[in-house]
């Protein structure tokens, strides 16, 4: 970084990533109703988190960010997910090691500690994890940091001055564009970008990148839950119907059997 005219890439970006059951895997509820069976099931980076990592790496490639830090909270296996993010282009990782079942409010508090240590201008998170489908963490982090929030982002554009970011969001009625003061928490939606595959050379390079290990205790965060899961069950299965022979038959069934016409 030299002095002189224009703005330099000074921003640090923190990306949160979660290890979840792969989106294509079949979900099985444990017979005792205590939860979903994750044993011997393929695990992957949450798809929305992949989009977040991709967006962060693109900010670096555009010269707007100087460093991308991938953060994950969870058991030992979360390391694999961080390695994937490093292979996609993140510079270093932080792993908050815990076997506790974390809920969004606890995660937001853990993120707050990380953010206070790393001092990023943007925190990118997936809008929701495809396991719990909560869609809460980003908004909560923004609240406890007293930062702006741009949720369900389909487009992100950092302003030249690097003090604001324009976020286009997918909302119920269509698209909405906000201008946010930095620092900001942005949560990613499906169409923000198409994440890259980690190439083999990058996977090898990623092995040399650093992953710092921390614990909730070291960060001074109480991760006990205010919500207890009492039971998990499968929804009532929908019984498939019949394949018909003609449009005439369909119209007849809809009128006279289903009574919807």
């Amino acid at each position, binding site marked *: 970084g030299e002095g002189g005219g224009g703005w330099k890439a000074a921003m640090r970006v923190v990306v949160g990533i979660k290890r979840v059951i792969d989106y294509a895997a079949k979900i099985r509820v444990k017979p005792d109703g205590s939860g979903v069976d994750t044993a011997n099931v393929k695990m992957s980076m949450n798809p929305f988190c992949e989009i977040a990592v991709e967006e962060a790496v693109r900010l670096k490639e555009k010269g707007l960010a100087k460093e991308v830090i991938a953060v994950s909270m969870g058991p030992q296996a979360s390391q694999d997910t961080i390695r994937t993010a490093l292979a996609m282009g993140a510079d270093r990782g932080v792993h908050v090691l815990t076997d506790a079942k974390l809920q969004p409010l606890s995660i937001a508090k853990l993120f707050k500690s990380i953010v206070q240590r790393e001092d990023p201008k943007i925190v990118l998170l997936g809008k929701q994890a495809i396991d719990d489908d909560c869609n809460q963490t980003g908004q909560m982090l923004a609240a406890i940091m007293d930062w702006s929030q741009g949720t369900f982002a389909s487009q992100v554009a950092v302003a030249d001055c690097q003090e604001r970011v324009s976020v286009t969001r997918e909302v119920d*009625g269509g698209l909405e564009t906000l201008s946010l003061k930095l620092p900001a928490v942005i949560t990613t939606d499906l169409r923000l970008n198409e994440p890259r595959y980690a190439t083999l050379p990058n996977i090898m390079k990623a092995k040399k990148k650093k992953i710092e290990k921390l614990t909730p205790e070291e960060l001074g965060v109480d991760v006990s839950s205010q919500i207890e899961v009492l039971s998990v069950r499968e929804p009532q299965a929908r019984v498939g119907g019949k394949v018909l022979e003609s449009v005439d038959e369909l119209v007849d069934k809809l009128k006279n059997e289903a009574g919807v016409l």
Partner: protein
Amino acid sequence: AGAGAERRSGKELTKVGSSGGEMWSRTLLKSLRGARQSSQQSGERSLGTLCIVEAKDGAGGLDSASKATLACAQKHLPKPFVALVASDAKGASEAAAGEIASLAGVETVLHGVSDKEGANGLLAEPLSQVVAALVGKLEPTHVVTGSNTFGKNLLPRVAALLDSAPITDVVQVVDESTFVRPIYAGNALSTVKFVGKGPLLLSVRTTAFGSEALETAQGAGAEVASVGAEEVAAGAAAEALSEWVGEEKSESERPQLDAARVVVSGGRALKSKENFEMLEKLADQLGGALGASRAAVDAGMCSNDLQVGQTGKVVAPELYLAIGISGAIQHLAGMKDSKTIVAINKDPEAPIFKVADYGLVGDLFKIIPELAEKLPSQK
């Protein structure tokens, strides 16, 4: 400061109903404050539920998410309830407030917190502070909003300000602290219990509560009042954080997707935007709404607000026509509670046929025109 606030609130009260209204409303505020003071002493909360609803300008009344929120509060959550109307336009918030005031179980309807130009007032940063301040003043046991993009954006922010873990996307209320919510794209249902100190914040899925009819009150309606100046002031500092720049809305005469009786939904097999317009004619013929799979939206065939699925809209119409949609888990998550599902696809192995009540295997470009011809017009 206390006395000052009382005077300011008194001035902002609007009269609703008979001339006895003004005196009644001052008495109401006094009793709410009195109740709060005594509850602070006893440690109990005085109000039942705070409902947060959104009234958008030009929407023509309460939207389906707001109605579902009010229905849930009315039927399943502690009464009485106070409704807060957030809006981007004064006219819309006043009209909505008037509509809510006639419902059974409502004690007060508050509005005017966010009637600002250009939808600034619905931004989460200031609004969440106002709601948190209101919660501090009214001390409800429960706070409820809809699980639409407004509620999803706002509620977790409010919850974090109050250090209370929210329960989002609720599909069933078991009791006042126990709820059922879908996980894993609706492939599992989780029954959870809130064990925090409260208040309990929740958001409710429109399709789970939207069909419960709202009960009107016997006798005089509830008090309609402006949100107190103190609460509005709580949001002032946060206004600097974000600015509304613009929007791209799909204007349509068709019914709203999450409230429509019929949904005609298209997938990747439609191939182009022009072909997608073929479905528009079918939707109009049936008086229904248009929907789409993620693949169709990604391919640019239609706008994002049509997407039905795990991360898009969840619908449960009387009739759902899945046209050229394969039936991926993530799509099923958004429509498997529809009463009747029809699948039209050229692949007999498509997973959609496993959930469809009626299926037609064939070329949709032949089937749809024939269907349009033979379906009675519902208009």
